[in-house]
């Protein structure tokens, strides 16, 4: 939990397992980490939608989505794209190495309020990281929800994250899973096409459904447009924002979109709320 004495002091955690989701210059690596201090391990509570500041001492910290659901166990998962100084240092970490974690930060997907509803997640690329905990949370509480549909796409099959989970997902008859890549590939027997188009092809009913989306800004823009075409109301659509962050607790100033701090008032926003925020899609 947020260190009340001094919220800038991070907790030490150990990388228990790590693997590459994707390759290339901007590779995505997933870290499964556990807190060193048992008290923190026991008292830590997070919920789908929330983020944490993870870092390497001497290099710095980055705000990263917590990509696991609390229903999965007493560990945290982060999927990190190698982009800048901090993520480069994080990518050096191997099992047994230390990273620092502080948080959890931000608001949550209101999954409690969505009980009884059909949950539709629409993810693109690394944007699946905040979708995954929603999927996992609903999977462990199927009885409380009206169904689960997951649309996930990336440029190529190699750019998809969490590939090792797809096979098990395909066996889950309560989960309607739709994978897609932008351009056709040999031995790819799922969809081909952009995520917003796959959404239209699937033509989900807005009735008693909540749509949650995260991905590149251009994808989010067209997904929102298409959800409206499908008849979804603004308060049935949720997305997450990201901005550069330093403190995570609404002090350092930089993550504001209009009068909202993404680190505190977000990162989860309903489309109804975002429409009031002038800088939301800047």
């Amino acid at each position, binding site marked *: 939990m*947020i260190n*009340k*004495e*001094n*919220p*800038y*002091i*991070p907790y*030490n955690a150990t990388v228990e397992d790590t693997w590459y989701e994707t390759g290339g210059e901007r590779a995505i690596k997933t870290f499964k980490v556990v807190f060193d201090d048992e008290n923190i391990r026991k008292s830590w509570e997070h919920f789908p939608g929330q983020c944490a500041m993870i870092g390497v*001492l*001497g*290099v*710095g*910290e980055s705000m990263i989505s917590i990509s696991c659901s609390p229903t999965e166990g007493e560990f945290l998962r982060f999927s990190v794209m190698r*982009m*800048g100084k901090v*993520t480069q240092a994080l990518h050096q970490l191997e099992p047994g190495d*230390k990273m620092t974690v502080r948080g959890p930060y931000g608001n949550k997907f209101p999954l409690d309020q969505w009980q009884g509803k059909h949950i539709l997640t629409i993810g693109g690329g690394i944007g699946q990281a905040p979708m995954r905990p929603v999927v996992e949370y609903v999977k462990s509480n199927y009885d409380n929800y009206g169904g689960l549909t997951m649309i996930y796409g990336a440029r190529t099959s190699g750019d998809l994250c969490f590939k090792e989970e797809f096979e098990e997902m395909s066996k889950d008859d309560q989960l309607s899973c739709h994978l897609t890549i932008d351009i056709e590939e040999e031995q790819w027997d799922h969809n081909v096409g952009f995520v917003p188009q796959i959404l239209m092809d699937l033509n989900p009913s807005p009735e008693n459904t909540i749509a949650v989306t995260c991905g590149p*800004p251009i994808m989010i823009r067209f997904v929102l447009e298409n959800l409206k075409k499908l008849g979804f109301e603004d308060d049935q659509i949720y997305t997450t924002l*990201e*901005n*550069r962050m*330093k*403190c995570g*607790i*609404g*002090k*350092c*100033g*930089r993550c*504001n*979109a*209009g*009068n909202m701090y993404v680190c*505190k008032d977000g990162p989860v926003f309903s489309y109804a709320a975002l429409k009031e925020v*002038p*800088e939301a899609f*800047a």
Partner: protein
Amino acid sequence: MSAMLLNKEKWSDFVGMLAGKNLWAPRESDEGLRFVPVAEGEVPTLDYNNTRVPPKEAVFPQTETLFKFKVGGKDLEEPRPDQDAVLLGVRPCDARAMHIIDELFSWDEDDPYYLKRREKTVLVGLACNEPGLNCFCTSVGGGPVSTEGLDLLMVDLGEKYLLEEVTEKGSALIDEVKELLEEADDNSSKQKDKLADEAAGKIKRSIETEGIPAGLPGLWEDELWQRVSASCIGCGTCTFLCPTCHCFDIQDETEGFEARRCRMWDSCMFREYTLHTSGHNPRPTRSERTRNRINHKYSYYVDKFEVIACVGCGRCINLCPVNIDILDILGQVKEEI
């Protein structure tokens, strides 16, 4: 509120008695007039309009260590809390600025670095008899004798200073120097009111802020932001030297095996402030950054904390190298609303 008088003949004794208390006062430096610890035997004079660097740096230093550690280690060493401090000669606008950003630093999560220092610092104010050219405190809820944020207010009555206690910290300070003071009479209080009225009358610049916080969001796409930022060179002076600006960056520094995580003032007028690692920047030009600066002070902060985050000290007007004038911007905002 009890009030006392200090004869100016006893000024050096007064300063001498406070000298052991980590006394800070304005002194001219290479970077202009700023608050610095008073040296032994030094007798500061209160002969200035206002400091160039606001006294916020005493509680929110330009750079400060959050914690230290050894390279490769995992034990974090927090800095020892600072000693008590007394700031002598803080202008009412600057004290009010701290009062305003107290809200931010104690919002939900407490910021222990700022709040602990704030608690340990006594602000001795100096009422303004001669406002500066670009002062407009009276437009934004302040005034030449405003006591918000102060612990003690001093008013220059000519031969004497009137000392009015505002908080318990202020009255405790008065108790310590009581032997130098005499009880104030009705006359000195009348004198103070007269000086305050005169000072307020000398403030030449103003803006009617009513309607600005509610009207700003509607001007999001207005071309005025292009217009008012056209000459901006992005130096960040307006925000660095603003007493209510509180944005900061956090960076790690290493030297040999010694390392520290520190925070330092940052500015929304800089490109890097919002630059994503992907290269995307939600505020790509100075027009968006200027819009954010004005909106943050006159709209967002009002939404969150019900107070305008500008105290009318005039620093951003006085010190802008290309003469951008916040009152001119706000005037244009008023016209467009």
